[in-house]
């Protein structure tokens, strides 16, 4: 029953993806290993589209993943399941725990969680890099896509410049599309 699977998986993501939308990414990556809802390459497209359309990125990605898995009903189930745990938790905090974020134990827990969330996103990004910057040949030999690596490294380098850091992801995505079309990548 795909809707129940979607509910179960996205409820779990909503519960354990802590620290914002991108924290859902490692969990979405994890799903590619267990379900055939979307491939890693499709996940990369989903990130690009989620970053270039209105709405919170985390919600957009969940909606897209659900849509790929089971059409519009799948999109609705995935999105609502993702927000359900937080809906309950936030209301409880709002009612009973006014100083929740100043609590010593909560702060200590986050002292541990923050580097881990960065690491998990790092894992997901490494998986994306592995499939986006390599070429799989017909005899299933995989080689590095050197032009791709060069473009990626150049863009990453330019992003370190102070002014360019603030550019919206959409700008970079449009540049990527134009380069892709011109160079016939």
């Amino acid at each position, binding site marked *: 029953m795909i809707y129940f699977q979607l509910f179960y998986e996205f409820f779990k993501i909503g519960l354990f993806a802590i620290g914002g939308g991108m924290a859902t990414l490692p969990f979405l990556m994890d799903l590619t290993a267990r379900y055939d809802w979307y491939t890693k390459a499709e996940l990369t497209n989903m990130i690009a589209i989620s970053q270039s359309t209105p709405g*919170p990125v985390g919600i957009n990605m969940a909606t897209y993943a659900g849509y790929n898995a089971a059409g519009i009903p799948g999109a609705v189930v995935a999105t609502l399941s993702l927000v359900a745990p937080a809906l309950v938790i936030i209301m409880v905090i709002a009612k009973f725990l006014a100083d929740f974020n100043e609590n010593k134990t909560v702060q200590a*827990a986050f002292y*541990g969680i923050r580097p881990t969330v960065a*690491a998990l*996103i790092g894992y997901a990004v490494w998986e994306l890099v592995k499939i986006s910057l390599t070429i799989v040949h017909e005899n299933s030999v995989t080689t590095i896509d050197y032009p791709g690596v060069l473009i990626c490294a150049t863009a990453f380098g330019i992003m370190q410049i102070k002014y360019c850091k603030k550019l919206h992801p959409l700008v970079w995505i449009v540049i990527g599309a134009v380069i892709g079309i011109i160079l016939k990548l």
Partner: protein
Amino acid sequence: MNIKNKKISGKILSELYISFFKIGALTFGGGLAMLPMLKRELVDSKKWVTEEEILDMYAIGQCTPGIIAVNTATFVGFQEAGILGGVAATLGMVSPSLIIICLIASILKNFINLPAVQHALAGIRIMVCALMLQTVVTMAQKGVKDKLGIFLFLAGFLIASFTPVPLALVVVASALAGIIAKRQEGKQA
């Protein structure tokens, strides 16, 4: 942060839904990118919350599961009109995403096999790599502050990459590690 003593009417629920629908439809990217829009709509126009309350909510959002922007919606809705208000605001926030993404996904499905679209997506995927690498660098700079941070970062990366340990378990274990480390620090001090 108490719930205001207000009669919960259909009017306030639909106002909450519409306000957050607008915010969801008009802001690109979540997180801090949403702050100016939240301020304009919730503080200046509707006067539901103060700017300080929104910033507090962001702080709480960083320490709770879920999407920060959505959590802010739940919080404001709950404050204004109880549980139903929280639900209405949350649904308002996610509705535009549902509509826009389903629309784009169904359109893209029809064009995905065009060579130009394939080339564009190939270029976009490379750019996404650069963007996401940048995200990881920024998050690591914010989150990895000391030896324990470095250890947890490396351990998290290696466990996620090379073992079948569920990611949820990794998150919970790191929370415990943080609590234990702070306890030890407290004992030594």
